[in-house]
């Protein structure tokens, strides 16, 4: 097969690789959902995927359009009520990884999905946080995945929907948050990890063919790069096939419903 791949495919596959077979993962909709299911269908068959609609241990054959599609319930180990989801499972500390997307992200992993502009007088009213504020504080750690744009990756976010590392350093500790917070950012161009001291996201791996200049051109903050930056391993045939088959099944199912 053609092992050429798109930046989006590289992003999803790099994100999938970050998950392990033992993870209990709270899955955000969109890019995180694709990555989590590719992980489940490749190297992490026993990973537990949880969607906030209450489905625990779900194994969808197609990607859901919403976090509450029937497919998630049909394939779950169990489906609980939403209050139970947030109280026993998330707040109870049972989730190892929360996987989030972002409309706006800053270099410390703080996320805005609430408003662009002033809260009371926004230029764009976004959907809001949903489960994210508590996912960000209650999961063992947070992975973030998003496509790089200057509009999305900004020096200062307009609203703190969910807290990452605040202004950096030990900001979480100062607020009494005991979980690790954002520990990984996977974009369409690179893999980033927080600096151990400052907690600023730092490029640790560039996807094949990507230059640091290109990363900077699509990022609103001054990009820092680790001393020993690596090249992300190219997608394998299995990874690409799994992702493309999943997307094809998903597209067929959703356009079928539209016909």
């Amino acid at each position, binding site marked *: 097969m053609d092992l050429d791949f798109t930046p989006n495919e590289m992003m999803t596959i790099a994100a999938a690789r970050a998950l392990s077979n033992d993870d209990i993962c709270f899955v955000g909709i969109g890019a995180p959902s694709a990555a989590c299911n590719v992980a489940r269908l490749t190297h992490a068959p026993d990973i537990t995927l949880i969607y906030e609609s209450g489905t625990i241990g779900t194994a969808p054959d197609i990607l859901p359009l919403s976090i509450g599609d029937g497919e998630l319930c049909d394939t779950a180990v169990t489906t609980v009520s939403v209050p139970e989801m947030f109280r026993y499972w998330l707040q109870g500390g049972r989730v190892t990884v929360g996987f989030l997307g972002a409309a706006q992200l800053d270099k410390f992993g703080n996320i805005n999905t609430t408003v662009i502009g002033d*809260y009371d007088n926004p230029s764009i009213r976004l959907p809001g*946080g949903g489960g994210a*504020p508590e996912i960000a504080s*209650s999961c063992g750690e947070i992975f973030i995945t998003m496509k790089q744009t200057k509009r999305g990756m900004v020096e200062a976010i307009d609203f703190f929907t969910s807290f990452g590392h605040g202004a950096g350093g030990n900001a979480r500790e100062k607020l009494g948050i005991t979980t690790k917070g954002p520990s990984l950012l996977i974009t369409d161009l690179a893999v980033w990890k927080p600096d151990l001291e400052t907690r600023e996201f730092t490029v640790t791996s560039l996807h094949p063919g990507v230059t640091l200049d290109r990363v900077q051109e699509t990022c609103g903050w001054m990009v820092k790069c680790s001393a020993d930056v690596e090249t992300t391993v190219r997608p394998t045939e299995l990874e690409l096939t799994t992702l493309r088959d999943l997307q094809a099944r998903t597209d067929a199912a959703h356009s079928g419903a539209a016909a």
Partner: protein
Amino acid sequence: MVKFQSLKDAVAENLFDGDTVAFEGFTHLIPHAAAHEAIRQGRQDLTVIRMTPDLVYDQMIGMGMVKKLIFSYAGNPGVGLLRRMRDAVENQWPKKIELEEHSHAAMANAYEAGAAGLPCAIFRGYKGAGLKDVNANIREVTCPFTGEVLAAVPAVKPDVTFIHAQKANKRGDVLIEGIIGVQKEAVLAAKRAVVTVEEIVDNFDDVHHNACVLPRWTVTSICEVPGGAHPSYAHGYYTRDNAAYLDWDKIASDRDVFAAWMQKNVIDANPEVFADRIATLREAK
């Protein structure tokens, strides 16, 4: 005691101008038919509560019925933003609405507190979150045993809750299956509860012992409205009409197109049309 009645009568007897009302459903079993009946009856000055206000609240906001929205995620699931809600927040069209915005954890806890008869919900949340600065109803309490500072929000206590469920039996007990969301809590937290169902069956003899059943004395009114969740879905009956959610993005993006759509599909329609809307979406039994 529970009444079996038409949706028209149930809305007329249970929803009044100025009420605080929840049309609940967490991405499943969303009570579209009931919301459309409320729109037809032209209720005004409503405070509407829902974790995930989607198309039905976009429609009610666009029709100028909403004074205040209490919510935690206002999007068109899998599609994008709510255009009518945006127009109201960004441009005050057709009128200004007040927002009380929470996280899902807060709303879920607040419903549960309402069902439990408590004045407020306490949970570990909102740490470092900006909503604390824009919502005066997000406060803190200190645990008297450990000293831990926790978040507190007022209980949700609707005047009336509307939900859609798969089945009622002839006695009036209600069965909810699949993704059950926060519907049980929303019913038990409310003074009155109206439930639309796919069908009314003789009994629940074949229902599992631990199923989510609302006993008949917790429900005010039951209305048989097949398809009443469309374009949402009813697990075991019909699938989600994803195309309708995609179409809504276009309809709601223009005020005139929206008004014309509402006239044709809501104002000039009735609850019976929902059965036709799901005809091609029915699950193979």
